[in-house]
């Protein structure tokens, strides 16, 4: 297999990246990997692979321009957060959720918080909001054909157990 960048040397580095819910594989030779800032001696973090290596994906010409999408609260663009690998504010999670869902699933294998909550988020106000959130999460999981998460969410809705704490035996 040849390097995706130079198309000359054999590929030695194989990366898998999730972009807009699609899995992309990138194959690079050692020289191109080094030029792209990949240190073969160093362990790469999952974040680097999933967020910060956008520039490695060969231009196909069919990709969306990334400047159109801005977070309504802090104003950073999709391209900016991807370049820095850091989100701008709390509202970015909603604004860029299409990108974040596959990425978060890849890292955490879950799409629903199951831990502590601030006291201000205690039931019952929360519960009403939450069932909406669960429904939305379920719809997204089904859409992405992530049936394991979908089954999980469905169980949570049935149990009326939003935090999922009991499931974890705590």
């Amino acid at each position, binding site marked *: 297999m040849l390097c995706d960048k130079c198309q000359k040397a054999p590929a030695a580095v194989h990366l898998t990246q999730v972009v807009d819910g699609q899995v992309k594989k990138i194959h690079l030779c050692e020289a191109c990997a080094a030029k792209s800032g990949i240190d073969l001696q160093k362990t790469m973090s999952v974040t680097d692979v999933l967020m910060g290596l956008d520039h490695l994906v060969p231009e196909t010409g069919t990709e969306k321009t990334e400047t159109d999408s801005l977070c309504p609260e802090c104003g950073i663009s999709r391209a900016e957060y991807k370049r820095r690998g*850091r989100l*701008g504010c*709390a509202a970015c999670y909603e604004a860029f959720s299409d990108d974040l869902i596959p990425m978060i699933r890849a*890292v955490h294998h879950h799409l629903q918080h*199951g831990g502590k909550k601030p006291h201000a988020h205690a039931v019952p106000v929360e519960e009403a909001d939450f069932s909406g959130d669960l429904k939305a999460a379920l719809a997204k999981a089904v859409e992405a054909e992530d049936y394991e998460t979908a089954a999980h969410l469905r169980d949570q809705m049935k149990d009326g157990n939003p935090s999922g704490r009991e499931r974890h035996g705590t």
Partner: protein
Amino acid sequence: MELDRILNHPGARVIPETESGIVVSSRVRVARNLRAFSFPGWLDVDGRVDVWQTLLGAIQEIPACSERVICPMSELTEMEKHLLFERHLISREMMARGEGCGVIVCPEDGFSLMINEEDHIRLQVLDAGLNLQSALKQADALDDAIEAQAEYAFSSKWGYLTSCPTNVGTGLRASVMLHLPALVLMQEMRPIINGLSKIGIAVRGLWGENTEAAGHMFQVSNQVTLGDSEEGIISQNEQIVQELVQHEENARIRLLEEKNVLLQDHLGRAGGILEKAHLLSSKEALNLLSALRLGIELKLITHLRRSVIDELLLLTQPAHLQKMFASDMKPDERDQARAELVKKRITQQTGD
């Protein structure tokens, strides 16, 4: 300055001599952000100062934080920043920060708060030995106390919102520092690191990378922060640490039984070099001290106490040496000072 109060405190490094030293320390880190502000990486100086002031105000109201030492990055010298870094109280990222960023340390209570690093708040509790449960309890109580003063960025779906989605959910990183020299000597670390990475547990060298870990010190931590409860994350981590301890104990027995000469040679060389060398690099010192530490635990070295080695592992780091010798030394001068210090401490104890 008050920094000495932090440095003079033994921190989490002292484990009773009678206990096994395989588990060195436990650390619980919790990431939190304030709802009203952008994440620190996108804030300008005024914004960061605003967050800093808000949080200082909140902390002032918390009785558990009454004995705090406040270290603003803008007021620290480079050496002081390095000292805090070597104590695991600030990160490299924090060292590069300036106004509106810093760390608040309560040395006697074993916790600290980094303000405006990657997230507005990085709350850390450090304890000796395997004590993740109690560290979590302490972190949880402090988190509650801060939350009573300030509104956090939280969503019922994603949990606590963090600047990097790899920390979202609980924002919890539970890590345990382990001394695993026998597994390294038996060349068994690589499959362990690979196997654990598949179940979402990261194993990293405390100094250096992967199996090249200088001093054979490893940090074991959870990668997954979303989905499970805090207690679930902690108990999975503890269970894995206990298994690793068993593996290390087995490897030590096999070393003694199957590779005794190799082991004795390893320990003998380490002792010889440390006693006679005139120049010691940081990495060499870590590796040789690690060998002595193993020898003491295996009772093959009886004239030294483990606490002496543990203290040297801390004091031979570059910034700690500079502070001790109170001068701005070049690397080769540091190597000389390091060799002197080690020789003095080791032979002093031999003469006890």
